[in-house]
């Protein structure tokens, strides 16, 4: 994998910030986009913009083919069938779809829902609301000092187990296969939030055995506003639509309407066509590089970064790079993460600071907030060095 060559595909990496070349280390929040993805969107609007699934004219035929082609690419990328791929706007919407269309129908006051303390708010709040509305029991799995999920066996018997695949703070990769097994053995279903895993490692939903897998496109080189819910066909078929309106019907009469087939039943209204095309192109790009290669590159970067940072800052989550995705949340003792981020920004080093939409986890760790550096396929050891130098500077300034 030739990182220098990959970097040439990302125009934004040439950008200067405060007179310094940008070191973009906030990929956990969103990734940058390669020229191929940007060009695909420009091409769509310049050459064949039209609504999908409607017209019989040339442009509409072309846009429909491109939109459905994107669905096929995504399906192949995670080893699913096309009718199991529902385009949504992001992971939050995907999880809300499961909550409303599956949860509201199947959860009662005797039900148990299990999530973990390490969930992103997108996989926390919907289940909290569902449990409140249905008077169901909501249970939380804890994490240990290393950031590993504990007590998964206790979740057995839950009606829904919804867990993050890779934590956006601790970086910990959960054993999704085992989670799904526990869910099924106890007679429940499994929902996996893959927002932080799918950009960084190969995903096979069949092998994983999950009932639902939710992710967003913009963290994996695609534009914002496009995400995916994978659902097992037999479950999706039994579920009611999430949103009602255009395109999700097969027939509308005054007396009533009939729902469209999968996956269209869940895609009401004109979809995000450019987003889907961008996501399909991003998948092509990732496939060309190879997900195994990307994972290998990130493990190398992570090991390097963890080695250099562990004596400088407090790191959260496992210190073994193979146990985490490409991100490191940390704190410089005595310095607020906002100050860390601002001082790094002065040198063009872009990191995240705050609670990363994981407030319950920060409470659990006894923290108000943390700083987070997150890597992707285009990041280099030189950028890690700049990060480390920047942190040393923070420590000098605030000493």
């Amino acid at each position, binding site marked *: 994998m030739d990182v220098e060559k990959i970097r040439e595909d990302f125009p934004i990496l040439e950008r200067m910030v405060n007179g310094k070349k940008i070191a973009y280390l906030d990929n956990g929040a969103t990734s940058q986009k390669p020229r191929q993805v940007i060009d695909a969107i420009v091409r769509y609007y310049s050459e064949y913009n039209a609504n999908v699934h409607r017209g019989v004219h040339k442009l509409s035929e072309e846009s429909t083919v491109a939109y459905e082609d994107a669905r096929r690419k995504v399906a192949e990328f995670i080893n699913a069938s096309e009718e199991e791929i529902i385009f949504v706007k992001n992971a939050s919407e995907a999880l809300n779809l499961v909550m409303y269309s599956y949860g509201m129908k199947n959860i009662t006051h005797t039900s148990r829902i299990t999530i973990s303390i390490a969930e992103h708010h997108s996989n926390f709040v919907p289940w909290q609301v569902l449990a409140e509305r249905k008077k169901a029991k909501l249970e939380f799995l804890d994490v240990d000092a290393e950031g590993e999920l504990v007590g998964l066996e206790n979740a057995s018997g839950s009606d829904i187990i919804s867990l993050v695949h890779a934590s956006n703070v601790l970086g910990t990769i959960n054993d999704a296969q085992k989670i799904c097994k526990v869910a099924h053995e106890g007679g429940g279903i499994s929902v996996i939030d893959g927002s932080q895993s799918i950009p960084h490692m190969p995903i096979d939903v069949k092998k994983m055995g999950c009932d639902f897998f939710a992710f967003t496109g913009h963290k994996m080189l695609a534009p914002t506003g496009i995400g995916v819910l994978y659902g097992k066909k037999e479950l999706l078929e039994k579920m009611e639509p999430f949103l009602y309106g255009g395109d999700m019907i097969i027939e509308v009469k005054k007396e009533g309407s009939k729902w469209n087939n999968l996956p269209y039943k869940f895609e009401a209204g004109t979809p995000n066509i450019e987003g889907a095309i961008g996501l399909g192109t991003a998948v092509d790009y990732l496939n060309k590089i190879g997900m195994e290669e990307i994972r290998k590159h990130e493990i190398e970067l992570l090991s390097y970064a963890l080695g250099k940072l562990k004596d400088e800052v407090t790191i959260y989550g496992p210190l073994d790079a193979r146990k985490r995705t490409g991100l490191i949340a940390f704190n410089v003792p005595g310095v*607020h993460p*906002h100050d860390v981020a*601002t001082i790094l920004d002065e040198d063009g080093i872009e990191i995240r600071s705050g*609670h990363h939409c994981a407030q319950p986890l920060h409470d659990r760790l006894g923290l*108000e907030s943390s700083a987070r550096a997150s890597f992707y396929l285009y990041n280099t050891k030189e950028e890690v060095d700049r990060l480390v130098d920047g942190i040393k500077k923070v420590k000098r300034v605030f000493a």
Partner: protein
Amino acid sequence: MSIEYERIVHIWKNPPNRGEIKDADLVAEGANPICGDKVKIFLKIKGGKIVDASFTGEGCAISIASASLLLDYANGKSIEEIKKLDKEKIMELLELDLSKNPSRLKCALLPLATLKNLKNKEERPGQ
């Protein structure tokens, strides 16, 4: 690092007006849940004017420096006068231009927002 930010960090290291006033007439609390900044402001009032002011709290350098400098400024003024202050005044006190860092504005404005939130009924200025 910019000279302006250096000044902020310098104030942060040893901020004037930090501490608690045990017999304060007014106490106001504020927080930015997003970043975890917290501030508690203590005011001593005599004849309608603030005669002593202090704060406790945790937060980033900007929010701490802002509390410190705002309370310096507040001394000798009425609460009404302080409530009328705006963003520009805080930037002036901080000698900082956050127009390029709007995300840090909330940190800078927390102490002022906390004072603005003082409910009138809680005020018992000068007996």
